[in-house]
């Protein structure tokens, strides 16, 4: 597998920079992603996609993006820095925000990849096709945990184990989701069913409502 650590790093650098410059004041915190945790994510993805009989030996961009997303939800550590007067985020709030940042990372990640066989770049900007899809996909990302304990210090009594069946299925399912969204992306304004959507922002819970507009600029 090609060393994609520069892609991993640039993706998180871009997402964090965009957040700090354009959204942090509105939401009351800036962010940073630990370089060490990004390296750990890359290391895990590299391990996962090497000699894995369930996945191709030379996976393409969408499987790579799925592995990045699923592994990133586990390994990447975001730091949240409250701006003056803002309250610190709780652990559960941080997890919710982490999923949003990983969601924003997908298009940035894909734009830096190409198909080796054809040399074709992934030039379209990835997005969820509808806002309803966006909400469900964000919830899906939050569900993407897999049972891996550690590393820790002191070490746990037993070496942590990855449930490979669950993880491979998660990667494959996420691959298909990301790939389908990419080919649906038209990069133009598109509302589900204009003015007839079955979501009324005032009627949904706070987390979902924020999911809808957290990345909108003023």
């Amino acid at each position, binding site marked *: 597998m*090609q060393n*994609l650590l520069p892609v991993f790093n*640039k*993706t998180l*650098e871009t*997402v964090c*920079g*965009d957040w700090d410059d*354009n959204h942090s004041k509105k939401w009351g915190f800036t962010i940073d992603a630990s370089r*060490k945790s990004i390296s*750990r994510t890359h290391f*895990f993805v590299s391990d*996962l996609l090497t*000699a*894995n*009989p*369930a*996945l*191709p030996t*030379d*996976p*393409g961009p969408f499987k790579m993006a799925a592995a990045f997303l699923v592994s990133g939800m586990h390994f990447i550590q975001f730091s949240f820095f409250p701006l003056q007067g803002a309250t610190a985020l709780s652990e559960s709030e941080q997890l919710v925000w982490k999923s949003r940042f990983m969601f*924003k990372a997908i*298009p*940035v990640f894909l*734009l*830096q*990849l*190409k198909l*080796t*066989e054809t040399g074709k*770049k992934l030039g379209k*900007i990835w*997005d969820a096709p509808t*806002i309803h899809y966006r909400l469900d996909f964000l919830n899906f990302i939050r569900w993407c945990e897999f049972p*891996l304990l*550690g*590393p820790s*210090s002191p*070490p746990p009594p*037993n*070496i*942590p*184990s*990855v449930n*490979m*069946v*669950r993880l491979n*299925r998660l990667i*494959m399912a996420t691959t298909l989701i990301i790939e389908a969204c990419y080919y649906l992306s038209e*990069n*133009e304004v*598109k*509302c589900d069913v204009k003015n007839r*959507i079955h979501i009324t*922002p005032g009627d949904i819970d706070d987390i979902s409502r924020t999911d809808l*507009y957290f*990345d*909108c*600029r003023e």
Partner: protein
Amino acid sequence: MNDPIAKAPNTVAGFSHIIDDGDSNGHGYFLPKQAAVGLKSVFNSGVGMVDVPVSVLRTALAALSANQKQRLADIKS
């Protein structure tokens, strides 16, 4: 149900595959890959890197942001 994957072992038992987690503390985890036999994908495209300036990536995020804002405006209108 004839799903070989569902019946495959998914624990560390019998596996010797210990992967270092890259933080050089000597700890690691098991990746019992043998348990995954059977899901084989049929298409290998490979992946390569494209050196895209951060400014271009930031422009893409701005476009998505504007798109989402317009979607929400459409709902409210």
